[in-house]
């Protein structure tokens, strides 16, 4: 029985580090049904080039570890079908932008999480185990704001989309500011005064120019743009009241 020739993909994959020696290397990969970009990368590493470094974990769109730049746009590779993004028979896979490349498709996420901490992205408790449960009405305006922004899993796609991150090294970035916004609207949180100071200014919410690439690209359909606009209103009110 004659085997039908599989359709082939030409895939340009970034190899190397941040030292300037990096370049794209082309691999030829057989096309498969319902193939994702992560499938392609895995196939290359297992069958063609075991030296290729890349990250993944859950491979089902829950953890955000597999985020890479696909044909110029940051995406979760486990949730990106080749059929959707391959222009003709070509694919281009590169590491996330705006972050230092460790090797090949792996980036150093420390700066991303350091900025999360700098933006006050941790909950500051005010109650103890002896206190009763906090009552937070889900329909309250503040809680609605939190719920709209809370599902962030810290994948870094928004950070890798943002031009301001590239132009302003101190800029905390959309994810960190989005998380700060959820905490500023959390009535249980005790760190709201300090956090407002942390997210104000040229390194904070005021550096956002509403380019909205973050909102365009967020795989969870969140809107850091809206959260940052909210922080602008909050900080402005505080500044006018002399509370900032």
């Amino acid at each position, binding site marked *: 029985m004659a085997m039908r020739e599989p359709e082939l993909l030409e895939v340009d994959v970034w190899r190397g580090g941040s030292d300037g020696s990096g370049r794209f290397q082309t691999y030829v990969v057989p096309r498969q049904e319902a193939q994702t970009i992560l499938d392609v990368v895995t196939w290359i590493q297992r069958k063609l080039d075991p030296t290729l470094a890349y990250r993944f974990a859950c491979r089902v769109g829950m953890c955000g570890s597999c985020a890479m730049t696909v044909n110029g746009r940051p995406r979760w590779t486990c949730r990106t079908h080749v059929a959707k993004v391959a222009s003709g028979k070509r694919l281009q896979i590169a590491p996330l932008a705006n972050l230092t490349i460790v090797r090949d498709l792996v980036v150093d996420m420390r700066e991303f999480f350091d900025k999360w901490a700098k933006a006050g992205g941790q909950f500051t408790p005010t109650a103890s185990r002896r206190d009763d449960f906090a009552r937070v009405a889900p329909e309250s305006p503040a809680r609605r704001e939190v719920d709209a922004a809370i599902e962030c899993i810290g994948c870094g796609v928004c950070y890798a989309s943002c031009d301001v991150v590239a*132009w*302003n090294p101190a800029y905390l970035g959309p994810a960190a500011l989005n998380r700060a916004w959820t905490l500023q609207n959390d009535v249980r949180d005790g760190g709201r005064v300090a956090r407002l100071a942390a997210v*104000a*200014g*040229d390194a904070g919410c005021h550096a956002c120019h509403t380019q909205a690439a973050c909102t365009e690209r967020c795989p969870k359909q969140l809107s850091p743009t809206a959260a940052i606009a909210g922080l602008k209103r909050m900080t402005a009110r505080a*500044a006018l009241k002399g509370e900032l």
Partner: protein
Amino acid sequence: MSARGETRLWLAQRASAAVLALCVLVHLATMIIAVNGGLTAADILGRTRGNPAWGAFYAVFVAAVAIHAPIGLRTIGAEWLHWRGRGADLCWLAIGVALFVIGIRAVAAVAL
């Protein structure tokens, strides 16, 4: 500059933007109507000379622009030319003052 200072700068830019929104609407309408068939000095000065209302309007316009433009340029300088810090801030402040001075001079030229 501190976070508080930068927040105030942002507020000043948005406040001046709101003022400019009104001034620019008036200015655009004026230009479109006034430029009918060509513009002469007499056209301009006939409208503005000795008229305190136009004088006041343009004075406010100039003040708002002198606040708004340098703050915007400061952001562009920081992001695209990587020019930040105390020196840059003082430079932009000086440009704002200079803009105000030549602007008020122009208002005086046409309104007094």
